[in-house]
């Protein structure tokens, strides 16, 4: 079975220390003011001493979705779903930073990197994984709220958690359901912070016009075929247009 790299997050363990955010920025050289991951807060006010108003934290990042709307918004396939690992990957050599994918992510997991001027987001730290380490955010998490691995492999840390808790795992319910591969154990608070995937008007125009463009090219091709047919079968009766 192919892999699906994912995170299983025990939101109840998160203490909002932002260690994952800092570790990610250092590991991935993320420019000042930009972030690949986050810890979001539930909107309700936490009142000390009242037990059912518990703080709720939602650690997150790119969710390497099953139905990634960012991939649909990319004209060149510079961002794509890797079918072997299940990751949503950005090919930086092909990305020109047109920005289409950024509003197309309902979780705001993407940004245009100020330095590279290309789309950027969590990539599960491939350099660290190649060296046998876990992603920086997972490694640094003091309460081990973030667990990373292949959820299709029950022997991996994330896979074991995933299989054991399959019934009670939740996902962020964005207005556009992209089937995110980020699973929450414990209560991450109201999940409505997922927004709506917005495909830029220019990309919509390109998609909508594509059938018309094909139609016009096809029409032109048919015209050429008609002329060629006439040339081949009835060419002899065609005389010069004016006489001498």
């Amino acid at each position, binding site marked *: 079975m192919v892999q699906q790299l994912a995170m299983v997050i025990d939101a109840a363990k998160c203490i909002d220390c932002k260690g994952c955010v800092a570790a990610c920025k250092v590991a991935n050289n993320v420019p000042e003011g930009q972030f690949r991951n986050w810890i979001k807060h539930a909107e309700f006010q936490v009142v000390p001493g009242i037990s059912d108003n518990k703080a709720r934290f939602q650690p997150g990042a790119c969710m390497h979705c099953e139905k990634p709307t960012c991939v649909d918004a990319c004209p060149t396939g510079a961002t794509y779903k890797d079918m072997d690992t299940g990751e949503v990957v950005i090919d930086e050599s092909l990305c020109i930073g047109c920005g289409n994918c950024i509003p197309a992510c309902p979780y705001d997991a993407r940004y245009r990197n100020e330095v590279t001027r290309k789309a950027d987001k969590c990539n599960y730290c491939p350099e660290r994984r190649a060296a046998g380490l876990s992603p920086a955010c997972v490694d640094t998490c003091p309460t081990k709220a973030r667990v990373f691995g292949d959820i299709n492999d029950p022997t991996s840390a994330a896979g074991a958690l995933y299989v054991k808790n399959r019934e009670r795992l939740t996902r962020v319910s964005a207005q556009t359901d992209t089937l995110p591969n980020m699973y929450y154990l414990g209560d991450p608070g109201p999940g409505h912070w997922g927004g709506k995937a917005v495909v830029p008007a220019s990309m919509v125009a390109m998609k909508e016009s594509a059938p018309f463009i094909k139609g016009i*090219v096809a029409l032109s091709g048919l015209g050429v075929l008609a002329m060629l047919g006439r040339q081949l079968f009835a060419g002899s009766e065609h005389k010069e247009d004016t006489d001498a």
Partner: protein
Amino acid sequence: MPDKTYKRHDRSDIFIHWFNAACWLLLLLTGVGLIQNPAIDPFGSGYPAWLRSVVGGGGNLLAIHEGIGLVWIAGFILYTVVNFRGAKFFLAEVFAVSPARDMGWMLKKIVLMTLGPKALKMVGADPALPDQGYYNMGQKAFAQASVVGGVVIAVTGVIMYLSDRTFGAESTGMIGWAVAVHFISVGLVFAGLLVHVYMAAISPDERPGFKSMFTGVVPGGYAKHHHRLWWEKVRTEPEQGSE
């Protein structure tokens, strides 16, 4: 004087035509390979994936496409420097449309080329075409599309080229539209290109015109039949015009 030839194209004109043709072919082949999204892929085929594997990845393909595009633009800048008069003459001829004469020519020509002269006679129209100048209306229409489309394609191409080199995140709206407009303009110009290639290179009618894109000259008979208004002007000139 049936054997007299008339000069139509300078060496720089012939160069820029074939240089443009070669660039367009390569840009089209590499550009289509850069589209990998099921909603816009022109063929819905495995062509982009195949081409990327041939050149060693999508990044290389993008670099090749950008490189050829910049050479193409540089070629046109060079041409305008070398033959500014020729470029000016070309643009003046191409955009000078005489509505009644040229529209009549265009409609009749389309019918003649697809259905034949009988179709015109059946509706009581004279199959003879109105006289044309240096360019006929079909040539003008495609040249207009090429000039306008070419400028739009070059400008949007440069915007995309600069996207990850100079532009910041605030410019992504413009860059996104550059991508869309580049795609749409290429599609439209390509539709016209099919007709241009047929008319110029395959149809026997325009064979002398095709040859002139190598030799620079056309025979008098061809000039008289196909570009009578131009022929009437140049035949009285003692010396061949430099155009």
